[in-house]
């Protein structure tokens, strides 16, 4: 996970405290509820400039920091491919 992603995700995890965020960190256990998850999705799309595809909109994507990071990377790569093709 890169630092901009960690910086973006951390404010949505009120129970993280001083612990490091790892790919195995379970978002629900760290305080992520539905309302925060919706705001997080807004932040990802606005802040990182990627839009998660419909097939990645599921509970597995939002299960851990690592699963969300993987979806963001896939969306970023697809966005890059679209730009290159344009």
């Amino acid at each position, binding site marked *: 996970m890169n630092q901009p992603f960690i910086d973006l995700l951390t404010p949505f995890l*009120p129970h993280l405290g001083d612990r490091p965020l790892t790919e195995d960190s379970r978002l629900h256990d760290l*305080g992520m509820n*539905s*309302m925060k998850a*919706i*705001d997080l999705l*807004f932040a990802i799309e606005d802040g990182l400039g990627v839009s998660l595809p*419909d097939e990645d*909109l599921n*509970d597995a994507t939002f299960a851990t920091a690592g699963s969300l990071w993987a979806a963001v990377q896939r969306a970023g790569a697809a966005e890059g491919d679209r730009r290159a093709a344009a």
Partner: protein
Amino acid sequence: MSVSAVREPTTGAGSRLGALPADASGADLWRVLGAENRLAGVYRGNDPRRGVDTAALSALLTDLDRRFGVGSTLAVTVPLATCLPLLAAGTGPAARTLADSLDGRTVVALAATDENSGCDLAGLDTSVSFDGEHLRLDGTKRWITNATTCGAVLVLARHRPGPHFTNFTWVLVPADAPGVRAEPAGTELFDGSGTGHLTFDGVRLTRDHVVGGTGRGLTAFAAHIATERLAGALWAGALCERVLRDTARHLGRRGDGDGVLWEKEGIRQRWAGALLRSRQHRALTESLAEAVAARRDTSAAALLKASAGETVAHVLDVCAHLQGAHGFRTGGPQQLRAQGALFGIGGGTTEVVLGIVAETAPESGAEERP
């Protein structure tokens, strides 16, 4: 303080709108506003995708509140604040319906609240299932504005079981599609709003009637209900100021001994207390409007919704009491009190939005709890 402390609005109305009778329905208002190109004008750059122009929206709602009933104004507010921006995220049928709506040729209803789950949208039962290029919709929605007058309905449905926020999807349903049934709600409080209940029984449509993408139902709802809450706050401010003006005018004319009621200090203070609440609501709305309109700030929108519900209840309670028996006339503040309860219930109860405020307020220390 003079009785003119709350100024009359100076916004004008288009000629055709001004020609409508005071009891015109929301569907009539929508048709005329569209024909006069006043619907697109509430959005930045006349584009619903860019969010609302707060000043333009406020001017329109103030105008409608002054001229027409609560039900009819409600019937314009909901599609303007929520349905059209939602449709703007779609293509195909959604894009065509958006164009028809902006021109006033059709009204779109927003059907989110389910028969049994109420404000708990994650618990709704209305379902959409997919079969190749088609979808099937089943469920019941209750207390839906424009249900009996709309040409199409935006329906929030689940495509997967479970409460996760990605399990919900918007579907655009033509009101005349086989399997759609509308019945009026049993109420006299919202004349002109077309409020009713909608049943979807095996409604079959092509898959391009999904709006905004599968799994984006609650996300889109969160973004656009914020705008509806801003619209409600703007309307609440206009409503309170209108009733305060009417009440001051009544008190200035109502005889009491050798003078008029307005000269009694206790009455003036009670009226001024209500004016204070109204002005506080107006100031809060102005301070948070940009955050909601430009950044879809759900916390700010929740605060505005809570303020609108509580301010309308307080101001109408005071004004209804100050007007005495006169307040019971048709369309008077006693009737408005019952209608005004809508501000504390529709689109999320005051308790629900205060919960959001507590959850998101930095001062709550939520992030410090284990």
